[in-house]
């Protein structure tokens, strides 16, 4: 839902850097997006296309690397994928902060990134 504002920040940051480097044109932008963020990639790409119009980023390629979520259990030391719980009666599956090994609670350590990793530009 907030892809437009997050993408606006991405574009603003890239343009600031492009200006600092006196770039003629931005060719590529590489992002890393964590799978546990609430950012939709489709909406992010759509916003990007609109926001780069009439800037030095127009026509630039957007590369998005998705990063898996990772959780850690302080009790048993489990470190790995987030657990999904199935509710067969309602045919639904949802993520939980329950440890798949010992059942106590885990915390998210990876997968919340929204990172501008690198930019390629023509100087």
């Amino acid at each position, binding site marked *: 839902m907030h892809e437009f504002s997050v993408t606006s920040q991405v574009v603003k940051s890239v343009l600031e850097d492009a200006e600092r480097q006196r770039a003629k044109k931005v060719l590529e932008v590489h992002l890393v997006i964590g799978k546990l963020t609430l950012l939709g990639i489709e909406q992010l790409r759509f916003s990007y296309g609109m926001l780069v119009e009439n800037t030095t980023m127009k026509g630039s390629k957007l590369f998005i690397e998705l990063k898996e979520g990772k959780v850690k259990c302080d009790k048993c030391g489990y470190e790995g994928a987030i657990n999904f719980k199935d509710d067969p009666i309602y045919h639904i599956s949802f*993520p939980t902060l329950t440890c798949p090994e010992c059942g106590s*609670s885990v915390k998210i350590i990876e997968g919340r990134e929204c990172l501008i990793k690198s930019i390629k530009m023509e100087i």
Partner: protein
Amino acid sequence: MSSVSRVIRAEEGEIYDIELVKDLLKANEEIAIENKKLLSRYGVKAIDVMGSIGTGKTALIEQLVRKLKEKYRIAAIAGDLTTTIDADLIAKHGVEVIQINTGKECHLDANLVRKALSRMDLDEIDLLFIENVGNLICPAEFPLGSDKRVVVISLTEGPNIVVKHPFVFMAADIVVINKMDLVEVLGVDVDRLVRQVSEINPKVSVIKTSCKNGTGIMDLIRALGL
């Protein structure tokens, strides 16, 4: 914003690759940490109240203010796209309210809260309620620097409201199930909602309330440690 930048010359003489490490969500978290430090320096406890439109966030804050205003000096920040309706409702109870109109933004962020805090006399308050924009998705992504994050859901939102929006419950410390006065009429399986919240986040406390008749408000006050 944390940013490390270094320039590397690429093969084609004129193309530069800039390696940036700039995390935009991390930037919000950093401001949230600053907000938290600022609040704790003044001894202010802050409660972030999240939830969909119409679940009773404002009514809940009103109930809490009514019960706590003799004990604490209270202020509130009310976030909405437009209008001061919620802020006016809370202000009726004689507490200072700052309205943040986000315009079109679907959530409050730490920077907006920092701005609001700069306009408040933090020496004069002990307890701050932050009413987030009515939305069960986006606020989860943006911590504000509060001590506790409360998610308010209500019985009128259907039986699957929890599992359909798991992420906000992961970000919560306390979940309030409001409108308990309607339980008979609606025939909602409340135990199932409670179970689902605990499955998503085993650390969370679940409190059942009715802001209409005051049920459960004291339980919530205890859960908030107030």
